[in-house]
C-alpha cells in the first residue's frame, strides 16, 4: 500500500465513529429537551398539556412505524393491531384480575411481539406489496374479532376501573394531567433512545442494508426474512407501549377507535411527513399533525374530523413535491456526510 494511502487510512481511523452534529443542532436539541421537561409548568392549562401528551404518544407510535418501514423497508398498514393489544392487555389484566398496568404493559409488549411473529413469518418472506396488503386486512379482521368478543366487552369495549389509591401503582391520576405528561414523555424518550441505539447497532445496519438491496444484504450473510420479522417485533412492542399508556389516559377502550385503520395510516403520514428512516422525523411529523387535528376539531367542530384529513393530504402533497424523503432527511444526510450546514 502506498504511503499516501496509509496516511489517509490513519486519518480515517482517527475520525469519530459517529459524526457529530453541528453545534447549532446540539444547542437546539438541548433547548428542546429543557422545554419538554419544563413544559407542564410553563403551559398549565389542561388543553395544552393534553395536546402535548398526544404529541408524545403519537411520536412514539410514528417511531414504531418508522422501525419497520423506515429501517427495514416493510410498509405495515396494521400498526393499530398492536396499539389495541397494548390497551386491552393492561386493561383486561387490571379489570379482571387486579394486575397493575405496569405488568400489563409488559404483557402487552410480549403479546404484540408474538402477534408480529404470527403475522410476519408467513407474510414477510414475500417481496413486494404483500406485507402491506396482509397487514391492512389482518388489521380489520382483528378489529372485527374484538368487536364480537364478549369476554372483552365486544363492540361496547371496556372501562378501566377507577382506582383512587396508589396512583403510580395503578397508573391513574384523577386530579392532574402532569403525571400523564411525564409518563408519556418517559415512554417517548425510552422509545427514541432505544431506536437511537438500534440505528447504531449491527441489527440496525443490517436492516438498512436489506431495505436498500435484499440480494446485496443476503450476499453478506444477512438472513433476510428473520431480520424483517425482528424489526416487526420491535415495532409492535413499541406500539403496544403507546396503547397501554393511551388506555390508562382515556380509561375507555373502544375497539372502533383503538383498532381503526385511521391509526395505522396516521402513524405512516406523520413519519413520511417528518422523514421516514430518520430518527427525529416521526417526532416532527407528530408535532405538526397532532395540533393540526386537534385545532381543526376545535375550529370546525364535529366536521373538523374531515378537515384535518384534507389538511394532511395537502401537507403530504407539498412534501412529495418539495422533498419526498421528508422534512428532516436533509439535515440527517448532511450530518452523515460530515459536512457543515451552509
Amino acid at each position, binding site marked *: 500500500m502506498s504511503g499516501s494511502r496509509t496516511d489517509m487510512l490513519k486519518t*480515517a481511523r482517527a475520525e469519530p465513529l459517529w459524526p457529530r452534529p453541528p453545534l447549532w443542532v446540539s444547542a437546539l436539541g438541548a433547548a428542546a429537551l429543557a422545554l419538554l421537561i419544563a413544559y407542564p409548568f410553563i403551559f398549565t392549562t389542561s388543553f395544552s398539556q393534553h395536546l402535548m401528551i398526544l404529541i408524545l404518544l403519537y411520536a412514539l407510535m410514528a417511531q414504531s412505524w418508522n422501525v419497520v418501514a423506515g429501517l427495514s423497508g416493510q410498509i405495515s398498514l396494521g400498526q393499530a393491531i398492536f396499539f389495541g393489544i397494548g390497551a386491552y392487555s393492561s386493561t383486561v389484566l387490571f379489570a379482571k384480575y387486579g394486575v397493575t398496568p405496569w405488568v400489563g404493559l409488559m404483557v402487552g409488549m410480549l403479546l404484540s411481539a408474538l402477534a408480529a411473529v404470527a403475522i410476519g413469518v408467513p407474510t414477510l418472506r414475500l417481496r413486494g406489496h404483500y406485507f402491506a396488503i396482509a397487514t391492512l386486512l389482518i388489521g380489520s379482521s382483528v378489529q372485527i374479532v374484538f368487536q364480537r368478543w364478549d369476554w372483552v366487552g365486544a363492540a361496547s369495549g371496556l372501562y378501566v376501573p377507577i382506582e383512587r389509591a396508589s396512583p403510580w401503582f395503578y397508573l391513574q391520576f384523577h386530579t392532574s394531567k402532569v403525571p400523564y405528561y411525564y409518563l408519556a414523555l418517559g415512554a417517548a424518550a425510552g422509545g427514541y433512545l432505544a431506536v437511537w441505539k438500534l440505528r447504531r447497532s449491527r441489527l440496525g445496519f443490517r436492516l438498512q442494508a436489506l431495505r436498500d438491496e435484499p440480494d*446485496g444484504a443476503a450476499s453478506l450473510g444477512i438472513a433476510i426474512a428473520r431480520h424483517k420479522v425482528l424489526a416487526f417485533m420491535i415495532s409492535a412492542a413499541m406500539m403496544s407501549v403507546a396503547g397501554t399508556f393511551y388506555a390508562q389516559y382515556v380509561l375507555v377502550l373502544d375497539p372502533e377507535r383503538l383498532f381503526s385503520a385511521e391509526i395505522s395510516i396516521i402513524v405512516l403520514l406523520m413519519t413520511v411527513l417528518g422523514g421516514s428512516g430518520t430518527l427525529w422525523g416521526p417526532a416532527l411529523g407528530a408535532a405538526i399533525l397532532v395540533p393540526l387535528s386537534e385545532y381543526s376539531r376545535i375550529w370546525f367542530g364535529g366536521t373538523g374530523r374531515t378537515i384535518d384529513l384534507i389538511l394532511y393530504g395537502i401537507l403530504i402533497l407539498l412534501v412529495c413535491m418539495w422533498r419526498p424523503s421528508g422534512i428532516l432527511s436533509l439535515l440527517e444526510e448532511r450530518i452523515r*456526510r*460530515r459536512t457543515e450546514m451552509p
Partner: protein
Amino acid sequence: MSPLLDVSGLTKRYGGLTANADIVFDVNEGEIVGIIGPNGAGKSTLFDLITGFQQPDAGCVLLDGRDITGLRPDRISRLGVARTFQKLKPFLDLTVTENVIVGALAHTSDMKTARDRALESLAFVNLLEKRNNFARELSTGQRKRLELARGLAMSPRLILMDEVTGGVDQRSIAGLIALVLELKQRGLTIVMIEHNMQVIMRLADRILALHAGRPIAFGAPEQVRSEPAVVDAYLGTVTDAA
C-alpha cells in the same frame, strides 16, 4: 488435496431454455479460475447457482467437501463465500463506509472494530477518499470497487467476482489487476467472470469457457484459448454480429 469449490453436473432450465447444462469444474485453494464466454453463455446464472440466489435443477456444489447445493444465499455467505453482482447492488442510502461496515459485521458486532475493518477494506480497493459519500453518488467503476470492498470486509475464503473490469475505464484496469493479484497473494481463492481476454489470460490459473450454457473447455489459459470450440464460439459471435 480436495478442491475448495467442486461443481458437478450443475444444470438450470427456464422452460425450454437451458441456461446452464451439466457444468463441471473445480477450484483449488489459492487459485484464480476465470470464466469466459459470449453474452448469454450462462456465466452469471452459474454464479447465482453456486451462491444460492437461484436453485439448480440438477447437479451439486461442494465447498471444502461439504454439500452446499440449494442452501440460502446468506447461509452460503456465512460459510465464507463472498460475491459481487454484475448488476451492482450497493446500499444506496448508506454512505460508502456504512456499506462496507455491513460486510465487516459478519464477524463482529463491535461497531468500532467493524468500522476499522471497513476502512482497511476501502483503502485496499482505493476508495477511501469517497468514504463519507453516499453510495448513490458513486460512478459505476467506484460502485464495483465498493462491492468488492464490501465482500472482502467479511474476510471470505472464496470470492466470486462478476466482471470487475466491465464498464471501468482503461486506466483503472492495471490497478484492478494488481489488486486481484494481491488478493491471491494473501491466500484468497478467486473465481472471476471476465470479458477482457487480456486481463483473464494474465490473471487466471485455469479458465472455464462456456457457450450457450454448456462448458466447452476447462484448463490452462493457453490451452483454452487454442481450443477449436472456444475459437468457434468467439468467432461465431463476431460473425453473427457482422
